[in-house]
């Protein structure tokens, strides 16, 4: 088993197509396959949930049963058999290690291979001059390690797995969980509410600027297992935090479901910067396997002058369905969405954002860069909504698509709903191809064809890439190059 995994990894590395496709051979504990109330109770018991949380899960499960899989997205996939999935898989040795020394060495090795530093003296991916980054490592259904806790505690920052937070800070969880994404928000959010097993909780107290970047690294390892993580970030008045999220999964022929919910609450004058580099296994060249990435991410800019900025670089997943959004409730609050989505081979992505303007003088900025090649299909879907109460709203949206093959698809579907006449809304969209002249200019300076395409594409994405923290930007640039390999010609 380990031998096969190693061989697979070597093949993947040699062809450089998906470097993270290896499997960690580790003994795991599973919930029985399938989904019913007993499974929900099983997960709840595993997590040692308080009574209210079990009730909350059951309520969500019952609501989910009555809901339907959304069909409006521009993606196609066979119906998911929700009874053919494990909803809980945890490495047996992962039982709440107190320190890094107690973490299973195999898990440490896995994260090392992925370039994720779990030892506090290491820095991300060996990048020169990188700053400290605290990491919460989620492996299948559980968090296996969280670093820099002491240093963060000193600053009053709470950074721990959501399971621990339920035990240690139930008042905060109870106060904020489900307040941004209601249980019945959508099919996959409801499912997540019922079966979420872990994820990250962040609380930044009043006036605190978080002393380092926080990050969660999600890894799906076990077969036929769904990952349902839940992230909750609360930035109290006048605080600031930059949070990063990364994800990978083994190469498998079966599709695996990832249905996460991320909620952000920004109180008055608070600022949250949320960056994602999504690199789930995209499936093979023929479209076999890969992750279904059905994620609900939403921020509530609750207080005046609050700001939330989403940045995403989406290169992985077989099917992506994801719209990180901002509800701009506080006056003068600001929402930003910077996105790069790359689809190759048979990948499908329907992604974008929603900016809901409720407060006065709220503003939003949307910069979306879509790159498609192979026979992939990509849609930008975005909503800018201005409520009657929102005077002086401003929005600027720019959607650029770059097509690298003649067989891919790129679509832009902007929805604009304005109910206040003082709003200023701007929308710009372009679709282009890499010109022969650009390509030859790069070749004539000594670049290989794939290097040239990667450079031009990185230039195309510059506005978004420069939003990423430096350590992530380096990683993301490499990733763009790798994702597009074999796309030329």
């Amino acid at each position, binding site marked *: 088993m380990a031998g096969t995994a190693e061989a697979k990894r070597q093949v993947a590395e040699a062809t450089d197509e998906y470097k993270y496709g290896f499997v960690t051979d580790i003994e795991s504990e599973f919930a029985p396959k399938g989904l019913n109330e007993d499974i929900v109770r099983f997960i709840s018991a595993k997590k040692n949930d308080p009574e209210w949380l079990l009730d909350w899960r059951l309520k969500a499960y019952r609501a989910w049963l009555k809901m339907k899989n959304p069909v409006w997205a521009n993606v196609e996939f066979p119906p998911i058999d929700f009874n053919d999935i494990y909803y809980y898989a945890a490495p047996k040795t992962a039982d709440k290690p107190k320190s890094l020394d107690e973490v299973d060495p195999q898990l440490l090795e896995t994260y090392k291979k992925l370039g994720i530093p779990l030892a506090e003296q290491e820095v991300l991916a060996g990048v020169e001059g990188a700053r400290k980054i605290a990491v919460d490592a989620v492996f299948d259904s559980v968090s296996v390690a969280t670093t820099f806790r002491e240093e963060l505690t000193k600053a009053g920052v709470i950074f721990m797995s959501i399971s621990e937070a339920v035990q240690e800070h139930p008042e905060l969880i109870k106060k904020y969980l489900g307040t941004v994404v209601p249980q019945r928000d959508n099919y996959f959010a409801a499912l997540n509410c019922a079966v979420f097993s872990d994820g990250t909780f962040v609380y930044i107290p009043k006036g605190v600027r978080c002393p380092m970047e926080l990050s969660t690294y999600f890894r799906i390892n076990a077969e036929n297992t769904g990952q349902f993580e839940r992230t909750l970030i609360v930035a109290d008045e006048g605080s600031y935090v930059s949070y990063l999220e990364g994800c990978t999964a083994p190469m498998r022929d079966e599709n695996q479901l990832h249905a996460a919910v991320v909620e952000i609450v920004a109180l008055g004058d608070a600022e949250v910067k949320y960056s994602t580099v999504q690199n789930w296994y995209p499936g093979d060249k023929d479209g076999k396997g890969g992750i279904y990435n059905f994620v609900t991410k939403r921020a509530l800019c609750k207080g005046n002058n609050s700001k939330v900025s989403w940045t995403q670089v989406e290169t992985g997943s077989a099917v992506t369905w994801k719209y990180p959004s901002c509800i701009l409730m506080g006056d003068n609050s600001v929402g930003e969405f910077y996105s790069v989505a790359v689809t190759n081979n048979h990948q499908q992505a329907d992604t974008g954002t929603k900016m809901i303007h409720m407060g006065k003088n709220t503003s939003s900025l949307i910069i979306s860069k879509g790159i498609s090649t192979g026979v992939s299909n990509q849609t930008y879907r975005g909503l800018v909504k201005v409520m009657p109460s929102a005077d002086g709203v401003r929005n600027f949206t720019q959607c650029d698509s770059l097509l690298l093959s003649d067989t891919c698809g790129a679509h832009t579907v902007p929805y604009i709903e304005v109910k206040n006449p003082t709003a200023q809304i701007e929308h710009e969209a372009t679709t282009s191809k890499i010109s022969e*002249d650009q390509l030859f200019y790069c070749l004539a300076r000594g670049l290989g064809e794939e290097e040239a395409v990667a450079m031009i594409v*990185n230039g195309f994405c510059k506005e978004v890439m420069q939003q990423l923290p430096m350590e992530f930007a380096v990683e993301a640039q490499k990733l763009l190059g790798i994702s597009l390999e074999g796309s030329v010609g």
Partner: protein
Amino acid sequence: MITIKNLHAKVGDSEILKGLDLEIKAGEVHAIMGPNGAGKSTLANTILGRSDYEVTEGSITFEGKDLLSLETYERVGEGIFLGFQYPVEIPGVSNLNFLRTALNSTRRYRGEEDMSAAEFMKIVRAKAKDLKMDPEMLKRFVNVGFSGGEKKRNETVQMAVLNPKFAVLDETDSGLDIDALRIVSDGINAQRRDDTAILMITHYQRLLDYVKPDVVHVMVDGRIVKSGGSELALELEEKGYADVA
């Protein structure tokens, strides 16, 4: 250094180069002049191996190697440079990043280590200074929003940093005012050494006042019809192509 024999090349269905012969030795500067449509730019693109230029007959040998069997980036790695008549804009890619990637690609081709960021910066700053280029321009996106003169100066900086054995300069003088022409000429002269060769493609005598060629060729209808010393350029300027050729 480079020997071109009986070169025929076509773009689409039309044959542009119709049996061109040219030999340039190390230490020499050649100029090719000729009317519009003679095939001068086609020659430049064909030497670099642009994919839509198809060689149907003949050979190009560079330092004993069959150039036509190499990909464009390999030809560049061997030490060939093309200064573009119309340098291309690459939005979002800084001049520095572009040039460093280019330099390291050619170094890797030659089996050399990548150049460190510090050493690279030192060289680029020095070359930019020589060519009186504002260092701020190095941070700007490749050719985006550059004036015609700035683009040509940028090409010359790139040539200086990449330090090729053989440079083909396609109408480097077009779009330059007198001051810029002088600076770019200085850059070309700095590249003129015993171990390098330069091929300048130009319409006008004025560049040749600053960079004195060893040999001047007249190209008409895909062939070189006359060659001579630098006095030939003056004769062309006076009488026009029709009379000289």
